[in-house]
């Protein structure tokens, strides 16, 4: 089923995609992909040329960018199939495709459009998916991402993340902005603008709010902002520094690092900032808490052993376990959604790299080369890790697959981009 391919040169996935040119928008380049890719043909949808933004181009761009697929040109096959029944498997097999996507866009009297699509496995000669959506034109892009998610899940076995959003921070001159965009970088929306640094955006599990750190009060203060209304609240504004927010899996509590009682220590509070309770007392730095997916323990960074290392605190028993031992700088732990391991930042010589570690085997896999990689954020399907790559003071975002084989670069023209946060599946 799989054919190996390698992208030797930088592939500008968005060159084929005419609507990517908005200002300050991130564009995604695949800078390395290795191993298996599923050959797939995306046939232009019948009737889509009547609309300024079709569906099939966005679907193809999504799948292409994931580097899990190899695009097979549908051009030589005439007439173009529209429905699953029209697909002649042998003709597509002869062109090297394992799967074919067909579809149509049909205007309705009320101004909405009926979007139909089907995914056909031409090897097994079966229809893997056939879905009809009735949508208004502003939802075309979102519909295309949904279709790409269905295709990705049917063919790889993992849920797609094309419909999710990402948050990140840009710095242009003295101005900092917190932005939210679609996972493909399109439709960036500014959520916060400040003349002081912004840091550590963290999505609430329901996707309705983002917690972040702002220095606008000449010290770090943690805010929670509602994305729909723009309203926000300072949830941790104690004496000293307030930083590193992390949501509990149920979205009702936040772990934060506070210094109000001396030293950087971990607290858990309600999401409205009430009832901050210290979870542990140490004479060392404890920070960068992240809840495990089951909410029963947190991963955090501490220098209690003499150098910054990753630890796990069991919230029920209070037991603390050191997890990293290799090297003198292992920080920023982020649990994978399956709870089986975590991504983190390690220093190797002077290089900062993204790595992952398995809880059971303690096996460490180094995923990136550095030199300035930081702030990992894992996609909700656990397959991609978004991170910041700082070179010579200018930051870009990059992504690496959790097996280390696929690398992408997210490029924003003329600004310094950092602190990425991958949003949840939930999209209100």
């Amino acid at each position: 089923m799989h054919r190996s391919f390698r992208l030797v040169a930088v592939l500008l996935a968005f060159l084929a995609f005419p609507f990517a040119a908005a200002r300050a928008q991130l564009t995604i380049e695949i800078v390395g992909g290795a191993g298996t890719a599923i050959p797939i043909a995306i046939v232009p949808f019948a009737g889509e040329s009547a609309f300024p933004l079709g569906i099939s181009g966005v679907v193809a761009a999504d799948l292409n960018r994931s580097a899990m697929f190899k695009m097979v040109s549908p051009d030589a096959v005439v007439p173009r199939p529209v429905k699953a029944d029209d697909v002649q498997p042998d003709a597509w097999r002869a062109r090297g495709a394992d799967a074919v996507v067909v579809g149509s866009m049909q205007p309705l009297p009320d101004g909405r459009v009926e979007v139909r699509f089907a995914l056909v496995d031409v090897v097994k000669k079966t229809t893997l998916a056939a879905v009809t959506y009735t949508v208004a034109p502003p939802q075309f892009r979102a519909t295309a991402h949904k279709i790409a998610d269905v295709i990705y899940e049917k063919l790889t076995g993992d849920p797609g993340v094309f419909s999710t959003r990402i948050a990140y921070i840009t710095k242009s001159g003295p101005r900092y902005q917190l932005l939210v965009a679609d996972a493909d970088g399109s439709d960036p929306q500014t959520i916060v603008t400040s003349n002081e640094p912004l840091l550590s955006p963290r999505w609430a599990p329901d996707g309705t709010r983002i917690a972040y750190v702002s220095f606008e009060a000449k010290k770090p203060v943690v805010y929670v902002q509602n994305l729909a209304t723009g309203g926000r609240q300072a949830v941790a504004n104690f004496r000293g520094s307030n930083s590193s927010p992390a949501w509990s899996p149920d979205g009702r509590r936040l772990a934060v690092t506070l210094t109000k009682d001396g030293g950087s220590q971990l607290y858990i509070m309600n999401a409205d900032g009430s009832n901050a309770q210290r979870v542990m007392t140490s004479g060392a730095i404890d920070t960068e808490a992240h809840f495990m997916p089951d909410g029963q323990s947190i991963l955090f960074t501490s220098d209690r052993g003499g150098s910054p290392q990753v630890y796990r605190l069991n919230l029920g028993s209070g037991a603390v376990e050191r997890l990293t031992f290799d090297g003198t700088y292992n920080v920023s732990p982020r649990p994978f959604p399956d709870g089986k391991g975590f991504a983190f930042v390690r220093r190797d010589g002077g290089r900062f790299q993204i790595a992952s570690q398995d809880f059971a085997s303690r096996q460490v896999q180094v995923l990136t080369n550095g030199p300035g990689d930081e702030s990992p954020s894992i996609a909700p399907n656990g397959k991609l890790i978004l991170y910041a790559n700082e070179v010579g003071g200018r930051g870009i975002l990059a992504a690496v697959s959790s097996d280390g084989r696929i690398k992408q670069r997210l490029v924003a023209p003329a600004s310094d981009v950092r602190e990425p946060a991958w949003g949840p599946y939930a999209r209100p």
Partner: protein
Amino acid sequence: MKKIVFAALVAAFLVGCASTPTEAPVEDKSSSADPAATASTGASTSGTTTAGIGGTATGANPLKDPNNILSKRSIYFEFDSFAVSDQYKPVIEAHAKYLAANRNARVALQGHADERGSREYNIALGQKRADAVKRMMTLLGVQETIVETVSFGEEKPKNLGHDEASWAENRRVDIVYAGE
């Protein structure tokens, strides 16, 4: 390696000193005091006026007199370290003395880190540096409640360069009086 670090520290210290006068406008027009005398007697000669609060200071403001040790506002640290080096003890002692004599003064100790590594961990590192300076001040008799330690992590570098000499200037604690 040690030599390089030391040289960098010295360089950072010198740059820090040199850049101090640009940080705050000097408004000691009435000052005719011998700078050495001012420095040696510390802040007690400045009486009850305190910097910034109410903006009613008359006469020399020792905090802004470039010849006064109180105008030195930065303490520099080695990589991954929060130990206050001996060379900065006179500066901290002078500020402790000033705070003891000026009961209305409030001060923020703003910790900073260089750009390497995790931004959040660097906030904690900057905090630990600020806390170390505060500990020295409280041991010298400064009331705990008038000193707030905060951290900017790597977010507010003094030097925008990306080499060891630049980083040495960014691993610091800045002493900032309320109203400044």
